[in-house]
């Protein structure tokens, strides 16, 4: 039961709610302001917190391994039941030495393969969904693309190791490996193809995982391209492919780069699927694209258990250091992408114009 609160009302009952109402509004206002400020600084604080914790945890490992950590390849936990030694003031197991170069390279290689595979497929998918297919087909297909983005990576990893890997190593890789010439770059596609666990399979699985991420964003971007410039290009006698290449894609280029960075971020950090299909081999660089290897993220998850058995804590510190390297790679990639976006945006129209 509300009480009328018109100015003409003079009863105390009528006035009271007005006062509390105003007070409540002031309180709400302040809550909004404070909440807003908190929300603004939360990402910064969160990021700083994570980086600082990682750096603190990694500090002993950094003191021992130095910059050699990212250039060396040996991965030796040492004798965790035997004696310890002191290196640069840090207590470590006898014979322990860690180099992350192979997994660092593996991280970059798998992500690069994933991008090379995923980008054209994603743009093609987005293009088909927005420009080529009739609505009754594109709506459900678009829905499935989004569903694919939500499939847990462990399931994709399982499929990769049980189905895709064996199929590729039996029916596809041998054909490729036996027919490519022995020239630079293509040389890496020759040689032993292994059993389906390795660099190329990991890259392909990662590619599949980031296609929906890039494709669904790119589709939404394509839908925002106004029809008039596209019609202008058609009316000039351009083919559909030329319209796509010269008008539609450039129109949303910075957005596509942003979507690609999102996908790349997922590829760099993807853990379990890669742990399942990479072969999880530490300390060696894959000799060809079929070779077994591992990535930073996969190593952290597969090695954490055994690292905990290192009483000196050096193994855990090393994993923290690997994590720090991965975080730095992600930040650098993001900054690079931003620079590219700024350059690409020079010719771009504000979205929705014309």
């Amino acid at each position, binding site marked *: 039961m509300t009480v009328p609160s018109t100015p003409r009302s003079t009863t105390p009952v009528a006035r009271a709610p007005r006062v509390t109402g105003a007070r409540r509004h002031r309180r709400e206002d302040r809550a909004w302001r404070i909440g807003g400020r908190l929300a603004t600084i939360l990402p910064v604080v969160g990021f700083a917190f994570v980086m600082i914790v990682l750096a603190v945890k990694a500090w002993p490992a950094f003191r021992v391994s130095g910059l050699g950590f990212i250039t060396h390849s040996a991965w030796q936990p040492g004798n965790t039941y035997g004696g310890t030694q002191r290196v640069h003031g840090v207590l470590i197991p006898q014979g322990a030495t860690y180099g992350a170069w192979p997994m660092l390279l593996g991280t970059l290689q798998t992500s690069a393969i994933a991008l090379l595979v995923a980008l054209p497929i994603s743009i093609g998918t987005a293009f088909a969904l927005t420009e080529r297919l009739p609505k009754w087909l594109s709506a459900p297909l678009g829905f499935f693309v989004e569903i694919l983005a939500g499939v847990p990576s462990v399931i994709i990893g399982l499929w990769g190791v049980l189905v895709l890997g064996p199929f590729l190593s039996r029916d596809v890789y041998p054909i490729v490996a036996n027919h490519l010439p022995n020239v630079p770059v293509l040389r890496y596609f020759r040689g032993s193809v292994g059993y389906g666990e390795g660099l190329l399979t990991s890259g392909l699985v990662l590619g599949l995982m980031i296609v929906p991420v890039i494709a669904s964003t790119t589709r939404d971007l394509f839908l925002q391209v*106004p029809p*008039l*410039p596209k*019609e*202008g*290009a*058609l*009316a*000039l*006698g*351009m*083919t559909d492919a*030329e319209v796509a290449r*010269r*008008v539609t894609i*450039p*129109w949303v*280029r910075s957005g596509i780069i942003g979507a690609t960075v999102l996908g790349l971020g997922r590829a760099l950090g993807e853990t379990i699927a890669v742990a399942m299909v990479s072969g999880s081999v530490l300390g060696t660089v894959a000799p060809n694209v079929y070779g077994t290897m591992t990535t930073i993220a996969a190593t952290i998850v597969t090695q954490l258990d055994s690292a905990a058995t290192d009483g000196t804590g050096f193994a855990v510190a090393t994993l923290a250091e690997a994590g720090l390297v991965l975080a730095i790679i992600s930040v650098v990639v993001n900054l690079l992408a931003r620079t590219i976006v700024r350059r690409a945006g*020079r*010719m*771009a*129209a*504000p979205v929705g*114009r*014309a």
Partner: protein
Amino acid sequence: MDEVTRQKATPNEVDRALAHLDPDAGRPSNVVDVRNLSLHFGAKTVISDVTIPFERGTITALIGPTGSGKSTFLRTLNRMNDRVVGFRHEGEVLLDDESIWSSSQDLLTLRRRVGMLFQRPNPFPMSIKDNVVAGVKAHGIAKGRELDVVAETRLREVGLWNAVKDRLNDSPYRLSGGQQQLLCLARALAVGPEVLLLDEPTSALDPLSTEAVENLLRTLVPALTLIVVTHNLGQARRISDRTMFFYEGRLVEHGPTPALFESPRDPDTARYVNGLMG
């Protein structure tokens, strides 16, 4: 007698010399010939049974209230409607005596020959220079250094050269609306069209820009044939040689522009040109 003979001979020679120079010699005098054209979207008939020739080197204005079908008619002439869902046509549109829908007609070439300017400027997301030569590149008309020449020639042709010569590599979206539309005109002219379709080309422009575009359009004839859809009756009177009045999908009346405006034969035309029907 001698004099008479010479006087008779001279114009003939001039005619022959001119005919030799004129690239359109030997072509039909009607560059576009529309015959019994009906257009439908699904069950809806947008244009019914229009027959009209467009004479080479003239400007024709298409006027009529919104929904009269004039824009659809215009967009059909370079087959921009072909891919619209439910679009059907009956009748023929001939370009130089050849049907635009004939199998020997290449769609891309047709659109190079029949260019289009839209109701709002639609520059592509590329530099000003690249905009001008976009079609030229796509059709392989010129390449490399020639493109610079094409860009300068066309920008001069539309009177934009001095305004943009120092920022050819900049984004076109910082130009004013009128300048953008002139840029689009330069882009359309660059591929060497024979016919230019203009769909309310100045409806998004201010009066000064409109005047600039209109003056420019007058300079394009008789080299080109222009067909202009416009809601601006003043514009139709100022720039066109002939005017066609569309109403509810029918071509109600057409004729020389002064005649159609000053002594319309049809009562609907009269009401429309006198502003009694919008």
